[in-house]
């Protein structure tokens, strides 16, 4: 039974022993003095003088810095991005959701001479406690109002807190994932470093120029 197989196997484990670890540290990573100084954007001596307390901690190996998890821009996170001004309350998203967890109530809103009647959102609840982040609602949205978010840290001890209400949705950070949104991919948008705050930029089509608008509304009539 004794042969070369075992020693060869041990060589493999030995090789892996000295290989850099692939473990992802989350949410914090332990750093030494150098790492802590780098995180604070100073050189170690400055850091030592300015924050003696933190330096001591870092030298003792107790200092931690938060880490950003490496994600793809297409990542389907659970904090939806929503553009109120783009939404027509058509409820395609609610109809398309396999679990039926989007609740929309609308009321007739203002009547605009040019654009006609519009609807106001009264309730827009997404129960992410039951959401499976399949993205079908985002796929169904014809006006690019709803986008998957890239963040995923919205956990809670109480189940009822897992309902994203209208106010929270409106106020959420506008860091849309490029899932099913090729327009973001074309411009090389990176949700981890930038935001899309203007709702015009979130659409699938180019923003119409004043020229286009004039042609549409004045010349063609």
């Amino acid at each position, binding site marked *: *039974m*004794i*042969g*070369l*197989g*075992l020693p*060869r*196997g041990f*060589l*493999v*484990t030995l*090789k*892996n022993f000295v290989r850099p670890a*692939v473990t992802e540290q989350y949410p914090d990573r332990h750093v030494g003095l150098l790492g802590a100084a780098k995180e604070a954007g100073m050189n170690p001596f400055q850091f030592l003088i300015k924050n003696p307390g933190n330096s001591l901690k870092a030298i003792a190996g107790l200092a931690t810095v938060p880490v950003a998890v490496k*994600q*793809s*821009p*297409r*990542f*389907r996170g659970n904090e939806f991005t929503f553009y109120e001004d783009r939404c027509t309350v058509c409820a395609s998203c609610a109809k*398309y959701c*396999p679990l039926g967890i989007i609740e929309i109530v609308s009321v007739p809103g203002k009547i605009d001479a040019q654009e006609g009647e519009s609807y106001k959102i009264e309730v827009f609840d997404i129960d992410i406690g039951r959401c*499976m*982040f*399949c*993205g*079908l609602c985002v*796929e*169904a949205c014809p006006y690019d109002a709803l986008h*998957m978010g890239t963040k995923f840290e919205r956990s809670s001890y109480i189940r009822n807190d897992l309902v994203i209400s209208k106010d929270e949705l409106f106020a959420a950070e506008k860091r849309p*994932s*490029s*899932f*099913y949104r*090729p327009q973001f*991919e074309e411009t090389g948008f990176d949700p981890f470093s930038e935001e899309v705050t203007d709702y015009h930029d979130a659409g699938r089509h180019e923003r119409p120029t004043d020229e286009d608008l004039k042609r549409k509304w004045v010349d063609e009539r």
Partner: protein
Amino acid sequence: MAIKTQPVTVNLGPQHPSTHGVFRMRVMFDGEEIVDVEPIFGYLHRGSEKLAEERTYTQIVTLTDRMDYVSSMLNNQAYILAVEKLAGIEPSPRGVWLRMIASELQRIASHLVATGFLLQDLGALGTPLIYAMRERENILDLFEIICGARITNSYLRPGGVFMDAPQEFWPALDRGLSDIVNTLDELEEYLSGNEIVFSRTKGTAVLSPELLINASITGPMLRASGVDWDLRHRNPYDYYEKIKFERKLHTASDNYARYWVRVQEARESVKIIRQCIDQIEPGPVRPSFDDVPRLLRPPAGDAYAAIEGSKGELGFYLVSDGGIAPYRMHVRSSSLINLTLLRDMLIGGQFGDLFVTFGSVDLNMGEVDR
């Protein structure tokens, strides 16, 4: 002098770490020898087939992800093929190539999991499993780049995939493939010549090809007994007729042969993906919404489509009554059918081989119970 023993019945599972999920077995031992096994399933039953009856055809894709959760892409592919057959959809070429790449990647991931856990069951606590999982992690990263999710992908749609792969996917895939080959080399160097693995797996749970065929066992288990049956070759779906690959066969039909076939198949998958990358053509990834609307209403009728999944023939049978949801969906899940020979494999074996044999079937409880 033989020791006088008395049969003892032991309950294994459902919450046992080695049962690959929630599987329960009532085993009768006589000393170290297994004299009777009674498998009991149903602990992970979620009623996916019934749930499908009130979902539209696109929404069901999300249900298929959750059946065999270590090979979601393959489940997606089998389901989508059945829908395309049912509704007579002509898929877009680029979408088909993309889904072939995705499903072959998934096959590698699934085989890595199977190998890792087989070794875990053998008592190699941790090390080979971690090597396999480390590589699987890279594949899941690729899935995250291509579709935004790691496990529950829902990447495929009737007629293709929902979105083209982004620019950064192709270099990442290239790197990933060479990493996979390295890991497989390493795993084989580590295990395929290892005397302990030999003595534990060779000659255990041998099944004859006749028995396997009669029990309609498919996949690596069948190929480990020397039967050349691979749906990708026998009944090519998608563009597999444009792909050249070897079918790896082993004749021993024991636990070692099953392990060996899986590792070799993962290597072949790498070659298949390379060929797909060479042949992929630009174009739309799915037909336009005019041809294939989001809300499909296939004509009344039925369709069955099967693919070579990571565990065997994975088939979806759909019956439509002309509505927006299928009238009935049935899944031919290879894990469940591969389990039918459990008694033949285990009875007469040793207690120590129980979980090894169980692991060599490579079953996934999500697919067994659905």
